[in-house]
């Protein structure tokens, strides 16, 4: 009976072997990722804490409704779902690269790693477009009794509550600058060019502003921009470093470093990091875009 027990049960702590059945590097990668999870967790929880301390918080479907090449079409969740699927697929190709490494299949590792890098770069490009779109966006806001045109930055964002008080908007026109008036009219009047509008007087322009065609909001909670750019930026930085690590792995594979070493364990460690990046995105996607 005692012999069957010893053959079936490994004594992990009897020495001479890793009690966790893992090599040092992979175990340490796990502990690094655990600490990184707490860093991201702290950021997201801080975001949640601030969000719960506010009476009003921007609706993600109002903020993220643009799609490249679709102009001003209202497409909530469309672009971010593309980004999410890109990251999921690149995670799958990474699993396949790790598996090819298990079998010592050099060509397989190269092929799947290359696709993972392509996915990572595609994701980063999407994020660059989204940031650019948010920062340079032109949205009319009612601030301190005058109208202003702003995008989403660290200093403010146009995602406050809709202004329904028409009298306040009309009164605000009197304090609004000439340049803003031109932009306001231009946003819905396509019969005049910017130059023609610039030549008009303020009174003429005020008469042409049609509030019914605009969704004028107040300024949103100032923390929104900082949290969005901070957390998606920190995640984007992880994706960027993941792409760099994968490129280094690809070059090392091509130079037969792992083949000569006899194992592809480095690919497994890079794979863990890459999956973690995907894992974090799942939560960023939840906190910023879905709820």
């Amino acid at each position, binding site marked *: 009976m005692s012999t069957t027990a010893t053959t079936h049960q*490994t004594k*992990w702590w009897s020495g*001479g*072997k*890793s*009690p*966790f*059945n*893992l*090599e040092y590097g992979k*175990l340490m990668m*796990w*502990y690094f990722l*655990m600490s990184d999870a*707490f860093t991201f*967790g*702290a950021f997201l*929880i801080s975001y*949640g*804490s601030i*969000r*719960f*301390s*506010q*009476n*009003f918080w921007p*609706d993600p*479907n109002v903020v993220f409704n643009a799609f490249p090449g679709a102009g001003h079409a209202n497409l*909530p*969740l469309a672009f971010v*779902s593309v980004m*999410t*699927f890109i990251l*999921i697929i690149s*995670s*799958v190709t*990474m*699993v*396949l690269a790790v*598996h090819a490494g*298990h*079998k*010592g299949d050099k060509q397989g590792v190269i092929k799947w790693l290359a696709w993972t890098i392509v996915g990572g770069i595609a994701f980063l490009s999407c994020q660059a477009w989204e940031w650019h779109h948010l920062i340079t966006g032109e949205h009319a806001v009612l601030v301190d009794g005058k109208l202003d045109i702003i995008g989403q930055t660290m200093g403010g964002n146009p995602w406050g*509550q809709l202004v329904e008080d028409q009298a306040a908007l009309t009164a605000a026109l009197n304090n609004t600058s000439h340049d803003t008036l031109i932009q306001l009219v231009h946003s819905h009047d396509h019969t005049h060019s910017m130059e023609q509008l610039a030549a008009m007087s303020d009174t003429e322009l005020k008469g042409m502003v049609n509030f019914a065609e605009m969704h004028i909001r107040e300024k949103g909670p100032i923390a929104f921009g900082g949290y969005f750019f901070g957390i998606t930026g920190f995640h984007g930085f992880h994706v960027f470093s993941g792409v760099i690590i994968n490129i280094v792995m690809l070059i090392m594979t091509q130079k037969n470093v792992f083949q000569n070493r*006899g*194992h592809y*364990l480095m690919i497994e460690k890079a*794979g*863990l990091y890459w*999956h*973690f990046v*995907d*894992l974090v995105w*799942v*939560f960023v*996607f*939840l906190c910023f*875009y*879905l*709820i």
Partner: protein
Amino acid sequence: MQHPAFEEVSFQHHTDDAEFKRRVRKTTILLSIITIIELVIGLTIYTIHKGENPNHTLVLMFKGMVCILTLAKAYYIVSVFMHLGDEIRNMIMTIVVPLMLFIWFIAAFIWDGNSYKNLRNKYDKHFEETTMPKQHHKVDEHPAEIKTGKE
């Protein structure tokens, strides 16, 4: 495959190629389906918000569902893609047990944020008047409108 450089790793996972491919395909499909369900719920919340009288309890319920689906996604990524599910139990516990801290972490800080909001609304009337969504005032106005309509 043996790892000559790591003799301390004594036990190898023998993953059959066909079995592995089946598992990866299954997980990919699962993750995609969950994401699609999440997107559908997101659009449902959007439609509810657009409506005349958004049902806040319903929205909260949908948001809770999305949170649970996200946890399911996280489980599949960590367990299958990161192979944590294939490691030995002791190793899994050193990762999972510290993460339990998140239960307190999330509850405490969300609670704190909410309490700060309630205190501010109570003692800082300017904050309440300038930031409270207008829908709340509408609810009070509606009965008055109905009355005047009847008379």
